[in-house]
Structure formats: structure tokens, C-alpha cells
């Protein structure tokens, strides 16, 4: 019998039908991937199992766990199951832990609650599980607070909480989406080994087929609250009989078509952006009255060029200094040492007024398309914002023309200029962000993880848009990303950054095929790749 058997699960929240009759099962020891784009109902399915749905949610159907229908179980029964028989890991490790309690307290709490163990015994068990998830006692005593840990380490604590009592079912809701690829691989490995050791069932939720292809036994694909496709992983992914599964698979490997046009645009005039020995240090932590830790070199003696029309990726793990570098290029932060030249002019010492013409030619696109817009302004005003950087003030007509042209170039209907940010979808908002970036017709766009918050199909469209703008307008890009698929898709050259230094650089395809630096190899090894994962699975199965 299946450990978890969901049949005809429906969920309504107000008038919204979040789930429309889902069937799903997880066997003991099985890893079942639940894949779908945002709004497909993946998280709602997980929260239905836990019965932690938001107020006003109404469920129907059956969720059978170990012979009991959870939908009719009492709250007291659910409290006995949660954390004991069913553990759950969440997406956002930075906020998933209580900031005012130590990690030891937070892990031990569940143990004491369910087993009634004494404090000493619970602490012993806590120590054991923290050791198991890769947080050894020497470096991670129980008295550590969450803010003293990195994102990956916090996610290990969350996993320790979920697995402390060896639950029969573990639910992991996008457990690695907020982490860089190397951490992602480590966390997935950890989940895999825990499941193998304890013969747990694992419901692994993800928006990306490539992430789950390597480890899931079976896959269920969800869309708009309905199951599109379900079955054994290798079969589902190799045959791709269902059109939506095919679409997801293709989107996750999408490489936009790029002409060689951008290279012919490159003039022999010299680089558009020239970075020389750029360094940024932060003072070390204060130790007592006079002592200080040594300065932290976030960016350490970095030198590179970007030619006009060239698309360059800056890849590296989180914390390697790539965002600090981007902030200095954008003149949002001042270098401690070194020089930045843009279009032949040194810019790292300019006053805000003198920077205006520079900013006009250098725009930015951020990761979170929602957070970067003022929610009270209409699209037209948001997009027109950078126009103040122009030398002369535009007439209303000219301004409108510019807005229309920018909207057209990013594929948004003109009429939408009167909408507010919340009326756009995530992908459309990122298009707006790009429209805002190109309205001054810049020569360089710095894009900081511009597609990592987007669904795979939207991501493919936005990558197409970036490629298209590069082809048509000859805009050069500096792409900051930890995602090699993005680098592979639309950049000519790639630089690998590690601990503030650029450790490797060259043509994108060459570096990604055969990285020479340790950091580059780690990134390539950890990057989810649908083809490779599938090939490995097929050989494993013979």
C-alpha cells in the first residue's frame, strides 16, 4: 500500500479553485517529484497534506496517509503527525527559522514535543541530527542563532527539524530554489541520503524538471491545479508524450537563437567597459576595543573588458563578490582601489551630476521584478523614469513615443502602459524592467540574476528577449548569475568568480564544457542538466 495516497483532492480559497481533483501517491522509500510553474498548486498540495492551509480554504477528496484520511483528521491528530510522521522543508531558508531562538532549541523543540524526552536526551538527539545534516558540533554548537548561519546552513537546520524524528513522509517545497547551484546539489544529496537511510517517502516540489530529473523515481506534473502528466521519471522525460511536459523540458533547456550580428557591430575602438585592478574591501568585525578582524576583500584585484555588443556572464556562488562588483560598475558603490572606464572615460570618481550621461548609457535589470517597481505608479511613469538622464527634457509627445517604442520592443501592448505593476504577471513585470532599462538606448545593461525568480517557460521568453535586443540594438550585457544555463543561453564570454577574484575566463561554450578552475568545475558539476541527468538514469537502469 502507498504511504501517501491523494485522490481527487480539491481546494478552494474563496472563489479561486486552487486544486481541481489531484491524484498523487508516494510509496515508502520513493522520491516523488511534483513539478509545475508558479500558481500550479504545488505548494497548496503540500500544505493540504500538512493541513496548514490559509484561513478560508476548503478542501475536498481524500488524503490517505498510513490508512488515515487526513482531511477528516482532527487538529490534535494533525499536531501529533506533523513533525513526527510527516516532516516539511520550506523554500526560504533565510526566514524559516525563528531569529530569537537558538538552532538547538528549535530542533530539540519538536523532539521533546513528540517523544516527551528530557532536555538532556533531546539535546543529545539534536546534536546527532545536526551532525548528520552536516553541521558538526565543533563549528555549530547548539547555542548558535540562525543569523550566524548562511542560507545553505540554515536550510540544513530546517532539514534537521523536519527529519529529527525520522518521519515516514518528508515534504520538501522548493528546498533549493533560494540557494546557489553548488549548495543546491549538496542539499539535494543530503535529502537523497536521508531518504535512503530511513526509507522515507519524499515529496519533492520544484518548478524545474532539470533539478528533480537526477533523483526522483517518479514525477507528477501539475498545471493550473490539475495533473497534466504522471509516471516514472525516465519514461516521462525520455518520451515526453504529454505536450506540457515537453514544453517544460524544452523551456528548461532553452537556448535562444542568436545571430552573429552583435559581433559585427563590435568596433575596433576599444572596450566599452574596462575594469582595472578593481578592489573593494570592507572593514573586518570589531573585536573588543582596539582589535579588528582583517579587512574582508569582497572584490579582489579584478580586471576585465567588455566590448560593445558583447554579452558576458559573471558566474559564481553566492557571496563570491559578483553583486559587489556589479554595484561598483553601476556606480552604486565606490571601489576601494582600481579603476572603471566606460566608453573611454574614467567613471569611478565622478560626482552624481557627472554620472548622468554615464547612467544613460548603462542601465540595470534586477532579480526581483516586483520589488524594483513603485507599486503606486503606472507602467508608463515607471518605464519613463530614466528619461531624466537625457540632456534635454522631452516633450510629452516625445516621451510617449519613447515609452511606446520601449514597450513594443519588449513585447507588451501599448495599452498596458496605464496599468499598475500588480496587474502584470511576473514575466511581464520583468519585461517592464527591461523596457525601463532600454528606454534611454543604453550601450550596456547590467543584469543581476534577471531570470532566476521566473518560471522556466517565462524564463525562456525573457532570455529570448535579451538575445533579441542584443541582436537588434547591439546592447552589451554583463549578466550576473549562478545559473550556468543562463550563461550558456545568451553570453559570448564567461568569467568565473570565486572569493572576490576572477579565477577563469574565456568563451562561454569552452569554459562550460571544460572548466579548468576548481570553482568553475564545482559550478558545472552542480548545475542541473536535464540531458545529462536523463542519460545517467537510463544507463543506471540499463
Amino acid at each position, binding site marked *: 500500500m502507498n504511504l501517501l495516497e491523494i485522490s481527487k483532492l480539491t481546494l478552494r480559497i474563496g472563489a479561486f479553485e486552487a486544486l481541481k481533483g489531484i491524484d498523487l501517491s508516494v510509496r515508502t522509500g520513493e522520491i516523488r517529484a511534483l513539478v509545475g510553474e508558479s500558481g500550479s498548486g504545488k505548494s497548496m498540495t503540500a500544505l493540504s497534506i*500538512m493541513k*496548514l492551509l490559509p*484561513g478560508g480554504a476548503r478542501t475536498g477528496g481524500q488524503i490517505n496517509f498510513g490508512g488515515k484520511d487526513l482531511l477528516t483528521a482532527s*487538529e*490534535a491528530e494533525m*499536531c*501529533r*503527525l*506533523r*513533525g*513526527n510522521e510527516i*516532516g*516539511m522543508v*520550506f523554500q*526560504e531558508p533565510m*526566514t*524559516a*527559522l*525563528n*531569529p*530569537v*531562538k537558538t538552532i538547538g532549541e*528549535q530542533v530539540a*523543540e*519538536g523532539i521533546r*514535543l*513528540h517523544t516527551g524526552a528530557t532536555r538532556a536526551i533531546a539535546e543529545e538527539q539534536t546534536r546527532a541530527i545536526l551532525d548528520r545534516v552536516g553541521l558538526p558540533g565543533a563549528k555549530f554548537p547548539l547555542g548558535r*542563532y540562525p*543569523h550566524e548561519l548562511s542560507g545553505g546552513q540554515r536550510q540544513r537546520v*530546517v532539514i534537521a*527539524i*523536519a527529519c529529527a524524528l525520522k518521519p515516514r513522509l518528508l515534504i520538501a517545497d522548493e528546498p533549493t530554489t533560494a540557494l546557489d547551484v553548488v549548495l543546491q546539489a549538496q542539499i539535494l544529496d543530503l535529502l537523497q541520503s536521508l531518504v535512503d537511510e530511513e526509507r522515507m517517502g519524499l515529496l519533492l516540489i520544484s518548478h524545474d524538471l532539470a533539478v528533480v530529473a537526477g533523483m526522483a523515481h517518479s514525477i507528477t506534473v501539475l498545471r493550473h491545479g490539475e495533473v497534466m502528466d504522471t509516471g516514472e521519471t525516465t519514461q516521462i522525460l525520455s518520451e515526453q508524450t504529454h505536450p506540457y511536459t515537453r514544453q517544460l523540458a524544452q523551456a528548461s533547456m532553452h537556448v535562444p537563437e542568436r545571430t552573429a550580428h552583435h559581433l559585427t557591430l563590435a568596433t575596433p575602438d576599444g572596450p566599452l567597459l574596462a575594469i582595472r585592478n578593481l578592489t573593494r574591501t570592507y572593514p573586518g568585525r*570589531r573585536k573588543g*576595543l582596539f582589535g579588528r578582524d582583517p579587512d574582508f576583500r569582497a572584490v579582489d584585484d579584478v580586471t576585465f573588458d567588455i566590448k560593445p555588443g558583447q554579452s558576458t556572464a559573471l558566474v559564481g556562488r553566492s557571496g563570491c563578490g559578483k553583486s559587489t562588483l556589479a554595484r561598483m560598475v553601476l556606480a552604486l558603490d565606490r571601489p576601494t582601489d582600481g579603476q572603471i572606464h566606460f566608453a573611454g572615460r574614467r567613471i569611478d570618481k565622478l560626482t552624481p551630476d557627472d554620472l548622468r550621461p554615464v547612467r544613460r548609457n548603462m542601465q540595470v535589470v534586477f532579480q526581483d521584478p516586483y520589488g524594483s517597481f513603485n507599486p503606486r505608479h503606472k507602467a508608463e511613469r515607471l518605464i519613463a523614469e530614466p528619461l531624466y538622464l537625457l540632456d534635454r527634457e522631452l516633450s510629452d509627445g516625445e516621451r510617449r513615443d519613447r515609452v511606446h517604442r520601449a514597450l513594443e520592443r519588449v513585447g507588451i501592448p501599448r495599452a498596458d502602459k496605464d496599468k499598475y505593476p500588480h496587474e502584470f504577471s511576473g514575466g511581464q513585470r520583468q519585461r517592464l524592467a527591461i523596457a525601463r532599462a532600454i528606454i534611454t538606448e543604453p550601450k550596456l545593461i547590467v543584469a543581476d540574476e534577471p531570470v532566476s525568480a521566473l518560471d522556466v517557460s517565462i524564463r525562456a521568453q525573457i532570455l529570448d528577449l535579451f538575445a533579441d535586443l542584443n541582436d537588434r540594438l547591439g546592447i552589451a550585457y554583463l549578466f550576473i548569475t549562478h545559473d550556468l544555463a543562463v550563461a550558456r543561453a545568451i553570453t559570448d564570454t564567461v568569467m568565473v568568480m570565486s572569493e572576490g577574484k576572477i579565477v577563469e575566463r574565456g568563451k562561454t561554450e569552452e569554459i562550460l564544457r571544460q572548466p579548468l578552475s576548481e570553482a568553475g568545475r564545482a559550478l558545472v558539476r552542480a548545475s542541473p542538466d536535464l540531458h545529462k541527468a536523463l542519460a545517467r538514469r537510463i544507463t543506471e537502469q540499463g
Partner: protein
Amino acid sequence: MLNYVSKRILIGILTLLAASIVVFIVLDVVPGDPARLMLGMNATEEAVRALQQQMGLDQPLLVRYASWIGGLLVGDFGKSYTYSVPVLNLITERIAVSLPLALISLFLSTVIAIPVGLFSASRRGTMADSGTMAIAQVGVAIPNFWFALLLVYVFAVSLRLVPAGGFPGWNAGVWAGFKSLILPSIALGLPQAAILARVTRSALLDVLGEDYIRTARAKGLTRRKVLYRHALRNALIPVLTILGLQFAFLLAGTIIIENVFYLPGLGRLVFQAITQRDLIVVQGVVMLLVAAVIVVNLLVDLSYALVDPRLRGRS
């Protein structure tokens, strides 16, 4: 941490210094000559000038300021113009009433507000929640002197449980003194409790939307346990901030209530001193209150660090 505290104490001293200058100048420029006021409208110019000289009011501003500050440093607050006793004696006498009053009110405010806030937050959107918050709204809105009169009418006049006003002094016994502070404390504390309850509720509701609350629920904790073990401590920072402000208010902003209950507190002392241009008393009390506010704020800030480990070890 030690570094932080010593820095804060230094800032506190500078604040006190700035406050002393402002207080001194403001009281110097307000119209009304203490000497003339003491002697009455019919006094001769010579008599007034003689008194001014005797009180040192004819000295230049800077000299008067220096001698006042010099006195403060050694605990000499000067001598009241009207009562002819040391200001310090007047103040300590009145603090013996005002401080217990403020502390009892603050205690009432806290022990009522936090449970009410927890109650309301745990029943968000229910009739119980809206009912409680409606009462709290009324509590915020009604003037405390009106509420005080109501209390006097019910508990002193009709039920005769406590005195309607006056203060027998602590010499008459702790219980007698305490009894006469009960009604004023309630009149002061309940409206503060209403404010604090609303703050507690909204702080709790903010926290209850956090991801770590969901993590705690996924551990198997009941709603109630999550509220007490995880939400409450995280919600305490705004609550502590309001408590600090309330204490400062309760210490001196109680003139009306002191008048309603005929209590010889600091509020009434300042009020009388202002009307009689007993400037040296006003200066002394204001300095004391500024010092009290600085100390309370420091305590509140230190308590933040107790509540939230992220604030520890910052310099």
C-alpha cells in the same frame, strides 16, 4: 556590549547638557518676573530690585546658568522661590508619590495589555477579537480624567472601598498610601493598556505571518504553543518601545489625574511652580524628567538586545 553602553551613557550626558541649556533659556525668555510675582503688583521698584539681587536674578545669564549647573552637579538643585525650601526636598517628596503611581500604572498596563493582545491575535477576525478591540478603541478614546471621575463615583462614593482623593503619606502606612493610589493608577493605566493591547495585537499578527511560524507549526506545535513560544518574543520589540514611552508619560504627564485625586505628585508641583514663576523648581523637575527618559530609553534599548540576539554585540 560594554562599549555600546558606555557610548550610550556619554550620549545621555550630552543630551542632559543640551536639555539644561534649552530649559534655562526658554524659562529665561518667558514673560513674568519671579521677584515681582512674589512681592505682588503694588511693590516698589526698589523692593523688586532688592529681591532680584537677593535671588541672584540680576546676574548675567551665563553666570546664573553656571551656578545652577554647578549646583546640580553636587546635588544642589537650588532653593524654591515660593516655598523657601531646597528644590531637592520638594522633588523627593513628590517622587515618593509619582514614582509608585507610574510604576503601578505601568504594571497594570502591561499585565492587562499583553494577555488581551494575545487573546485578540489568537482569535483574529472573530467576534471576540473585534469586540475586544472595540473596547480597546473606546479605552484609547475616553479622556482619563472623565474615567477617573467615574471610578471615584463608583468605588469611592458609592462603594466606599477606597478614598476619593488625597494622599496620607507613606508614614501613615504602606497600605493606606497604596489604597489612595489604586484609583489613580487604574485611571492612568487602563487607557495605556488599551493602547498597548492594540500594539501587542498588531505586532503579534505581523509575526504570525512569518515563515518561521509555519516551520513551528510543521513541527507539530499547536496554534497556542506557537503563539506563546515563537510569536510573543518576536512581537516584544514594538511593545517595549511603547512601554518606554508610556513610562516617561506616566512619570510627569499626570497633572490632570493628580488634580482629580488631590495627589501631591510631580505633575502638580511643576504646574504650581509654573504659575508662580518658581523657575528654579521647574528647571529642576524638567532636568530630572529628562534624565529619567534617557535612562528608560537606555533600558529599553538594552532590553531589545535581550529579546533579539541579532542586536547583541553590535557597536
